[in-house]
């Protein structure tokens, strides 16, 4: 893959996160799985990037590595101007406190804390005071005003995920990583979450990376990166849902017989093979 062209004004200050020749290998011998095979990617600052690909293609792995949750087998990683390679647990913890926000697919909130306390948790852990103006803006953006003092088990799944979004936004991190944030929601709640994310990028210049396998969700992004079998196989700018679907179909056709551009088929696990079929698109 050639490195993407950085020509947008928002990205002028450099990439928010970077990976260069990133390899990730799980296990060894018989059970060895190569999840990422030399991925190089730069996520532009102030942009909304979606990562797509069939199940098992390495989306989550890529995101976890870039966010410093998982270590790379080989390759360079950076968030802003901080290189992740060689950072110990303390360094990674500081990085997460100061530069990274997370939104997970499910189980996002601490049951002992109210919605508001959950939102402010990263700041409390870092010992920072919230900017009241920004806090208000975030609350308004996610529309939680009257639910702030409820506990997670008193909130619907959609509301819980909005709290999680607010929590990621409130500390204004360098980049927010979201792993299938709408995967567990009905389409209406999902659409609401996606619009907050979109708005926070457009209006506040937040950088967001989102893993999804839903073409419609991907269409909210500025750029879609397609992963297959641990490699970036394509990308699309200013995507529409149709364009994304179209691209997925084409990729299936391309990758179907050989199992990927340069990966020998023998190295792939059986589990991976459905990725090369139509199920990848329907996922």
């Amino acid at each position, binding site marked *: 893959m050639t490195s993407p062209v950085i020509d947008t004004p928002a990205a002028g200050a450099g990439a928010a996160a970077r990976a260069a020749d990133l390899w990730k290998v799980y296990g060894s011998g018989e059970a060895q799985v190569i999840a990422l095979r030399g991925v190089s990617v730069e996520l532009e600052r102030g942009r909304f990037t979606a990562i797509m690909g069939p199940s098992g293609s390495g989306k989550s792995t890529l995101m*976890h590595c870039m966010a410093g*949750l*998982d270590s790379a087998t080989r390759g360079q990683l950076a968030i802003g101007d901080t290189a992740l390679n060689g950072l110990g*647990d*303390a360094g990674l*913890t*500081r990085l*997460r*406190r*100061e530069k990274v*926000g*997370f939104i*997970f697919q499910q*189980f*996002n*909130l*601490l*049951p*002992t*804390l109210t919605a508001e306390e959950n939102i402010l*948790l*990263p700041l*409390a*852990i*870092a*010992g920072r005071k919230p900017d009241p103006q920004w806090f208000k803006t975030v609350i308004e953006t996610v529309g939680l005003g009257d639910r702030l003092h409820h506990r997670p*088990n008193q909130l619907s799944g959609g509301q819980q995920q909005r709290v999680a979004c607010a*929590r990621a936004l409130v500390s204004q991190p360098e980049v927010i990583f979201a792993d299938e944030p709408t995967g567990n929601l009905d389409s209406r709640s999902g659409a609401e979450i996606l619009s907050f994310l979109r708005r926070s990028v457009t209006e506040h210049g937040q950088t967001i990376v989102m893993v999804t396998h839903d073409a419609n969700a991907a269409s909210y992004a500025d750029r879609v990166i397609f992963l297959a079998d641990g490699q970036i196989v394509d990308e699309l700018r200013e995507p529409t849902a149709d364009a994304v679907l179209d691209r997925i179909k084409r990729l299936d056709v391309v990758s179907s017989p050989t199992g990927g551009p340069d990966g020998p088929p023998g190295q792939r696990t059986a589990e991976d093979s459905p990725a090369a079929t139509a199920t990848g698109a329907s996922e």
Partner: protein
Amino acid sequence: MIKASLRGLLQRKLRLSLAVFAIVLSVAFLAGSLVLSDTLNARFTALFSTINQNVSVVVAAKDPQAVEPARLTDAQLRALSEVDGVKAVSPDVSAQGVIPFRATDGEPVSADAALGFGVDGNDDPLGLVELREGRWPTAEGEVTITAHTAELAKVKRGEQLKVYLPVLNEPRSFTVVGVAGYSGGRDSLAGEVVVMFQQAFAQQTFYGGTGLYGGASFAAEDGVSDDTLKQRIVEKLPAGFKALTGQESSEEQSAQVGVLFDVFKYILIGFAVVAGVVGIFLIFNTFNIIVAQRTRELALLRALGAGWGQVAGSVLLEALIVSLVGATVGLAAGIGVAAAGEAAITSQVELPAAGLVIAPLTVILAYLLGVVVTLIAAFVPAVRASSVPPVAAMRDVVRPDKSLTALSIVGAVFALPGIGLVLLGAFADLGGTAFLVLLGGAVLVFIGALLLSPLLARPIVRGLGALIGRGSAGNLGVRNAARNPRRTAVTAAAIIIGVTVIGMTATVVQSFKTSLEDIMGDNIGVEVMIQANVTAAPDGRQGFNPKALDQVRAIPGVKEAAAWHFDALGVSVAGQPQAFGIFATDVGQASRMFPFDATDGQIRTLAAQELVLDDNIAETLKLKAGDRTPVVIGGVTRDYTVVGVYQATPIIQGILVGEAAVADFPGPLAFQGFVSLNDGVDAAPVVEKIETIMKDYPGVQVGDRQSYVDQATASYDFLLIAVQILLLVALVIALLGILNTLVLSIVERTRELGLVRAVGLSRSGLVWMVTVESVLITVFGVFLGLALGVGLGAAFTKALMTLEFATVIAIPWLELGQYLLAAVVAGVLAAVIPARMAARLNVLDAISYE
């Protein structure tokens, strides 16, 4: 179904291991106690069988403790030896408390038993005792001693030995003319000290006349069974005597001695009970949490058609297996405990060898304890498991915490009447029944408090949390401790129980000590105390000769010296037995030393057949000054005149008679002496001089006023230490309980932990979070326990004050502070493993943990 629960068991073995451990502890203590006492019994039986190996029949006084025990005369002994079938006779002339003094430093030899015998100059006809060197004593000034005695007293044949003689109540010097041992080459049977005197001298000294015997042992001729001989002897037996076969005698003697070691048995059983009770809470918590964690799995079983009974049964089956494993390991550990205990005892006391005795009853009781404890504990979790709805398999069914209302109402139903009873016992003047009322109230309050503890957990944990839960990690720890009040309360229950008991004991003991110090400090004109450490209740047969006080009075600086005598056995006044006994002293002298406040009549030196008593007893016996009343002392009844009634105080209470009455006491010895000094005289040199005077009386101690307070409170300190050790056992198990709960909670909260790590909490922050939770649970338990313990202790003290046993309620703040500190340390320790577990979690694994 069974297969499923067995497989689940293996998967959860780590989580269950602490539950198993709780059972192991409890069973080990019980089994250890039983095996130890059986084993010691076997050893004693072996010991006395050795003593009685050639004895067919033993004749002894029915009541050897009587003031004048029955004696056999020469004629009676001869009649018994002429019974058909008697081969040999060994008459018994003996006394206890015959104490040799060490030749090297003049100190009395200390031994569990110190015996004196009279021997007739011939070898033992029953062959138990054998002469090793020299000869048997044939003159008044001669003794033969056992090899063990020679070793302890550091004397050799031909040297002088000073021996204290009980009935004479003074030491005498003897020449050692021989050294003896026991058949089989033993120096002693059980570490006892034995001095053998010329028979006539022993009879005169011990029994007050020659030709008297305490009893005799008989050997039967071949072909005559022990029982037959016993029958024949019984026919000729004089009044006041009993006959036993050698076998019966061995059993009786070993039972008597075995009692001495029962204290070990009861301590271990105490530990077993504490461990069992605390273990129930631990096991309950474990199963509860496991059931909560398995909700989905149980729901799946239900969805697949398992009945609720099958689900509950699978949990109980799991509990049963856990209990069997625990009981088996516990039994083995208990046998180890017993072996160690036996080794410790036999290193002090020489006993013949006998293997460890593991009775079938021990095994049965061990398994019964393990199984019963576990099944009680697992019952509620099993019922809870059976109520998981099948639909929970499909989605997260929010099972709201059951409301605490019902539990709290039941708690209040116990606690409120309990508080009422405690207040009644403390403040109403109920006399002796106050303690029963208090005890009943205390038990109710205690049960009530345990039931209410979940309700109290949240507010108390939050309140305490505000103090230590600073920072976001600490704050999360506080919330975790408060999030499940039932779990927190059950985890803390062991601590609540232990700390309540210790807090109560400490408060009562402290109050008692402070009261005593108060009174001793101000009102008493005594500077030096003489105290006899007697092995039985003092009755004048142990102690010191009051004549020795003449020498004390001659010491420069001594103002007055008073001897106190005491007797309780068989004492009665106005037809009522007096369990607290009667004192004899010069009351006029006593009134210058102690705070006597006459409320009726006068307090002065008493003539014969006069007495004074305290107001409480006067009221009970309905006596006032001038009354005449019958008094029984030492079996003699006389009419006494009540001269005065005085106000009871914690230091002076009871019935007092003049020194003339000592003639009726079983013995003439005083058990206490009080010495007052002239103004400005230093007590220390006087104490030293009195010590020299008292040197001839074994077990008599001399000390200043403070040493008296220390001595008077020593037995309470001992109680306190015993309770503290018990607390330690409870605390160790409680610690395991907290560790257990935290480990299970951490497994349960893996994803939460991952989340807080993902949003930036550091490893040390996580460790702090878990530590705060642990310390809060512990401190909550201590807090509640101390509140209960101090409250109940104060109530008991108040009742003691009404009875004049104490003057103030004193709260031992320092000790309570130490317990609190110990709890914090325990909490931190309990958190070490769970916190490391939590910190070691990989963030990514934690997030994706299913």
